[in-house]
């Protein structure tokens, strides 16, 4: 009974938050409509609000972070779940990776400012001068850029991806490995063809949760991404994300700008919801496909 009440409470709370956002966003929603989503200019002083560049920045930074973190996280997870090394060594590594999750966001931001930005400044300029003809790498190279934010985000989502992938790899029944070895498969054939496909739902879930974490991350991104609402192809240009925009502008906003920011918050909530639903759907499909194994 208590559990039931608690879950009702959570659902009510979520509904209340979404309701509150919608009520406050309504003036902007009725005024700008869908043009808000496709608009490329955000100029509060002129009453022009369009979030497309920010939406792209949000999607691009999270996707890039995932692209970097998923292979690395999965590799670490395989390494930790198989007996390549004695258990104490694996436990130390696991502890270190999971500690990454406990570091506050602002510390990642500071680390990004002092370590990643100088690196991106230095090598970004070289990249832009050598490969500037590729739109993604065109100059001028900024230290505070989409690339910097994505690199730090990748590190921030790494523990999520590693921990969930590892537990799903560990959960693969031992009988499956034995069966695979009995058929004459080598260790790597077993890992790549039996264990990873069996653990796929968990790995997909880890990627989705990592993506969600990257999308909602605020502090570190606001410190590193350059906070510019301009469209650009280049990874070396400053960009912005929805959550960083909210964090930056909410305090001093008034009138229709508050409402526009609420609308942006609503869009962020919908995006996160969309990602989670899509993730859930993928998870169910893969689960069905691998059902009955073990």
């Amino acid at each position, binding site marked *: 009974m208590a559990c039931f009440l608690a879950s009702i409470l959570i659902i009510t709370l979520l509904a209340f938050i979404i309701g509150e956002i919608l009520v406050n966003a309504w003036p902007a929603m009725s005024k700008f409509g869908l043009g808000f989503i496709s608009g490329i*200019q*955000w*100029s*509060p*002083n*002129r009453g022009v609000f369009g979030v497309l560049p920010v939406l792209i920045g949000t999607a691009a930074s999270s996707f890039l972070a995932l692209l970097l973190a998923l292979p690395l996280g999965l590799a670490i997870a395989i390494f930790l779940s198989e007996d390549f090394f004695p258990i104490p060594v694996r436990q130390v590594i696991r502890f270190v990776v999971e500690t990454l999750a406990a570091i506050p966001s602002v510390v990642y931001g500071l680390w990004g*400012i002092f370590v990643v*930005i*100088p690196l991106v*400044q230095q090598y970004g300029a070289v990249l832009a001068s050598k490969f500037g003809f590729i739109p993604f790498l065109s*100059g*001028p190279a*900024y*230290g*505070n850029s989409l690339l910097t934010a994505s690199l730090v985000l990748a590190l921030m989502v790494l523990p999520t991806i590693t921990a969930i992938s590892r537990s799903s790899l560990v959960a693969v029944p031992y009988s499956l490995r034995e069966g695979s070895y009995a058929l004459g498969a080598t260790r790597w054939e077993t890992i790549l063809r039996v264990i990873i496909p069996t653990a796929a739902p968990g790995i997909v879930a880890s990627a989705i949760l990592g993506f969600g974490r990257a999308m909602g991350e605020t502090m570190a991104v*606001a410190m590193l991404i*350059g*906070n*510019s*609402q*301009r469209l650009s192809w280049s990874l070396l240009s*400053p960009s912005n994300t929805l959550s960083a925009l909210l*964090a*930056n*502008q909410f*305090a*001093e*906003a*008034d009138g229709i*700008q508050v409402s526009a920011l609420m609308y942006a918050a609503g869009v962020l909530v919908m995006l996160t919801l969309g990602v989670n639903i899509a993730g859930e759907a993928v998870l169910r499909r893969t689960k069905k496909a691998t059902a009955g194994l073990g």
Partner: protein
Amino acid sequence: MTGRALDFLGTACRYGSTKGVVFLEVIKLNSQLSPFKPMTRNLLLAFLLAASVFQANAATALNASGATFPAPMYLRWASDFHKATPDITVNYQGVGSGAGIKQFTDGITDFGASDVAMSDAEIAKVNGNVLMLPATAGTIVLAYNIPGVQGGLKLSRTAYIGILLGTIKSWNDPAIVKENDGITLPNLPITVVARSDGSGTTAVFTTHLDAISPEFTSTVGSGKSVTWPVGVAGKGNDGVTALIKQTPGAIGYVEFGYAENNKLTMASLQNKAGNFIAPTIESGAATLASVKLPENLRAFITDPEGANDYPIATLTWLLVRKTYTDANKAAAVKAFVTYGLTTGQSIAPQLGYITLPANVVTQIQIALATVK
């Protein structure tokens, strides 16, 4: 655990009653509290601070909030004023001009502060029950980080407008080099650093640019939060300062006191008369001397005309009510503002702000006298 916590609360209340030395005691207590978990310790410390605030409330306490730009000076005034007048406490929070106006309008604070004078619409929201009193003034500077250039950079109006609009992209652009004989400017891309949050500093800065360049008006415009055609943005004066320090080739706008405290190199700007003026307390005072305050004390300095005036300056206002329901509060507000206009003005230059001219102070005091 609970027993120990209760014991502690007793101690806390005793400490709370000797206000004034609270902070020293907190440091002492922190070591005394070390057996507690950090969470518990913080809760207990918060309780102690709350207790000390309650103690202070026994006399007249004024709550105020608003602009961050003059906040260091208001905090200094508040602490000096409290020493001189122990039964009045002023609690000022630098929450930003917009939030300051909002909280004043909602009646949360006893007085507010803003870098941007309230608009007629905002005045209507408080039924006209507000006086805007200039408290100090400051200038906004363009600070830069060009490797090898230690200072002395001069920027003509064409140059700084061009840089901010992104039409001048490199430090060795002829438009910059022309005015800077004797300085070797590198072939380095310019990174413009702006404010990412809404701010009075941005409003004052863009109002000036808006006044001197029709092109700026059409591409950017003016306001607390604008979209810049180039560059990166940081949160707050400190965010901008950090970006300038870290990025070779950066130029950005910050408030003068901030730039000076952080030892940023600042550019001399061309004023309306055509002279290049370095940002100093003196050049800021020159600008202010030429300001004529209208009846409502609301004056905007968009492009000062004097030969030695620094071009970008602003007054910053205290917002007080014309009529307070509590006579004690009215008296306390008057006493505090009077202090700020007299003794307080002499502190201003130490903190990078400009002392108000004597005739302006007289004009404000006449207005202040009408507060009931």
